[in-house]
C-alpha cells in the first residue's frame, strides 16, 4: 500500500513538473517573440529617425546608428533560437523526401535522429561560447566595436542564445518522440 502511495505521489509530482516545464517554455516563447519583434521594429524606427534627424531637423545624433546596431545584434542573436523553435532552418531534404515518402513512422524516427545530431553539434559549440562570454565579462574593453556602447553584453548573449537553441532542440525532440508514439498507436505498434 505504501509503495502504491509513493507511486501516486511521484506521478503527481511528475505532473506538476511537466506543467511547470510547459509554462516555462511558453514564457520563453513569449519573451523571445517580444524581444525579436520589438528589436526589429525598434531598429527600423531608430534608423528612420536618424534620417529624419539628419535631413529635416539638421541635428544628427552620432550614437543613434550605434544604438540601432546594438539593438539589431541583440535581437538577431535571439532570433536564431526563435527560428530553431519554428523549425525554420533550411536543409536539403530532397533525399529524405524521396526515401521516406509515405513512411511516416520511419520519417519520424529519422527526424528524431537529426534532432539528436543537432543537439550534439550545438552542445560541442556551447563551451566555446561560454569561454567567449567569460572573456567578454572579464575584459569589457574588448567589446568596443560599436563605439558608444559596451558590447560585452552582446557577446554574453551569444552563450544565452546557444542555451535557448539547445532548449528548443530538446523540446522538438520530445515533440517528435510524442508524435512517434501517436504514429505507433495509429498503425498498431508500428506495423502498417
Amino acid at each position: 500500500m505504501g509503495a502504491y502511495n509513493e507511486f501516486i505521489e511521484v506521478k503527481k509530482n511528475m505532473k506538476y513538473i511537466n506543467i511547470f516545464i510547459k509554462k516555462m517554455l511558453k514564457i520563453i516563447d513569449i519573451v523571445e517573440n517580444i524581444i525579436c519583434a520589438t528589436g526589429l521594429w525598434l531598429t527600423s524606427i531608430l534608423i528612420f529617425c536618424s534620417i529624419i534627424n539628419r535631413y529635416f531637423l539638421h541635428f544628427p545624433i552620432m550614437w543613434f546608428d550605434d544604438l540601432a546596431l546594438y539593438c539589431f545584434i541583440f535581437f538577431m542573436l535571439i532570433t536564431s533560437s526563435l527560428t530553431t523553435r519554428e523549425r525554420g532552418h533550411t536543409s536539403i531534404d530532397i533525399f529524405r523526401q524521396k526515401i521516406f515518402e509515405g513512411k511516416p513512422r520511419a520519417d519520424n524516427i529519422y527526424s528524431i535522429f537529426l534532432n539528436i545530431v543537432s543537439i550534439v553539434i550545438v552542445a560541442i559549440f556551447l563551451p566555446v561560447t561560454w569561454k567567449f562570454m567569460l572573456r567578454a565579462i572579464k575584459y569589457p574593453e574588448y567589446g568596443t566595436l560599436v563605439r558608444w556602447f559596451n558590447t560585452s553584453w552582446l557577446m554574453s548573449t551569444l552563450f544565452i542564445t546557444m542555451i535557448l537553441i539547445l532548449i528548443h532542440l530538446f523540446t522538438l525532440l520530445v515533440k517528435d518522440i510524442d508524435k512517434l508514439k501517436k504514429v505507433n498507436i495509429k498503425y498498431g505498434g508500428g506495423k502498417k
Partner: protein
Amino acid sequence: MGIGIFIGLLVFFLGIIIGLPLCWVFLASSVTSLTLSNSSLSFMAGTYYHALDSYILMAIAFFILAGSLMSSAGLAEKLVLLAHVIVGNVKGGMIAVGIVATLFLGALTGSSVPCISALIPLLVGPLEKYGYERRYTTAVLCSSSFLGYLIPPSVPVLIYCLIAHQSVAAVFLSTIIPGLLLAGGYMILNYFIVDKYMHPTKEKIHDLTREEKVKAVWGALPALGCPVVVLVGIYGGICTPNEAGALAVVYTLFIGLWVYRKLDRKNIWLETRSALISLGMVFVLIAFGTVFARVLTREGVAQLMATSVIGLFQNKLLILLMINVLLLVLGMFIDGIPILIVVVPLILPLITDINMNLVHLGAVIVVNIGIGVITPPYAISIFVGSRLSGVSYDQLVKPMLLFLFAVALPVLFLTTYLPALSCWLPTLILGSKVVGSW
C-alpha cells in the same frame, strides 16, 4: 590540404546528404576540421559574433521585413492591373501581364516565393477561363519568379556584397539589364509558343476603358513608390542601403495601413513573425557560413582551388564556364543563400587571379542563384507553384525547361561573357572609380 580539412569537407557533404539543417552542417564541419588539425576552437565564437556585427545585415533585415509586409498589403492585384495596361493588348498578353507583374512584385518583395504565392491564385484560375492552360500559366509565373533577385532591392545581392566587400549600389545596378533581358526574352518566347497552350473559349478578355486604365495606374502608384524611394535614396546619395531599407519598411507600413488599408495588427504581427523566421535562418547561415569559410581559408582550400583550377584550364573563358556549371549544378540541389556563403569566399582568390571585375562577378552569381530557384530537382518555385496551382511537378517541369534553355541560360551566357551588360549601367551612374575596370 591536411587530413582535418579533408574529413571536415566529408562531414560537410555527409551533413547535406542526410538533410541536417545547413547551419549545423557548417558548424559540425568547422569543429571537425579544427579539432582534427589540433587548432583551437576559440576563434569560432568571435567570428560568429563579428559576422553579425554589420550594417549590411541590417539592410537585409529591413528589406525582408518590407517584402513580408508588401505581400500582405494587397499589392498583387494592383500590379496585375497595371501590367494589363502596359502589355495586355499584345498576343498572349495575359501571360505577359503575369511576367511584368512578377517583375514589379519581385522588385518590391526581393524574393521569389512571396511573388508567386501572390500571383498564382490571382492569375492561374481566371486565365484558365480564357483558354490559357493551367500548367502553362503556372510554369511561366514560376520561371519568372526569380526576376525579383535581379531587380533591386535584392537580398542575394546584399549578401554577395557583404561577403565580397563590394559596393551595394554598384551590384544592385549590375543585375538590372540581365533582369530586363530575361523578362523581355520570356515575353518574346511566350509570343511564339502561347498558341500551343491555348484553347478557344467563349469568354473573352475585355479591353480596359480609358477610365479603368487611369484607375489602374493610379492604384499602383503608391506601391511602385517603394522601389523609387529606395533607389532614389541610394543613388541620390541621400542614404545608405540600410537606411533605404528602413525607409522601405516605414513606407510599406504607411501605404499598407493608410493607403491600401489591408494591414491590421494581426497581419503586421504575422508578417513580422514570418520575417523573423527568415531572418533567423539567413543570419545563422551567414554566421556559421563565415566560420566555415574562415576555416577553409585558414587551411588554404580557397587558394588551393584557385591554383589548381588555373593550372587546369589556363583560360579565363573556360574558368568562367566552369564557375557557371558549378553554380548551376549546386543550384539544382541547394538554396541560393548557402551557395553564396560557401562558394563566394572559395572563388574570390581565383577571380582575383584572372582579373575579373567583382561587380561583374556579382551579376553572374546572382543570375546563377536566381536560375537555381527554377532548376529541378530542387526548385523551390516549382514546389510552391505546384502546390498552389494544383498542377503536378512533372507537368510543370516540361514548359519550364523551355524557358530555362531558350531564355534563362542564354541570358546567363551573355551576362558572363559580356561584362558591359552588367558593368555599363553602374559605371554610367556611379563612375569607373566605384565599379573598377572591366
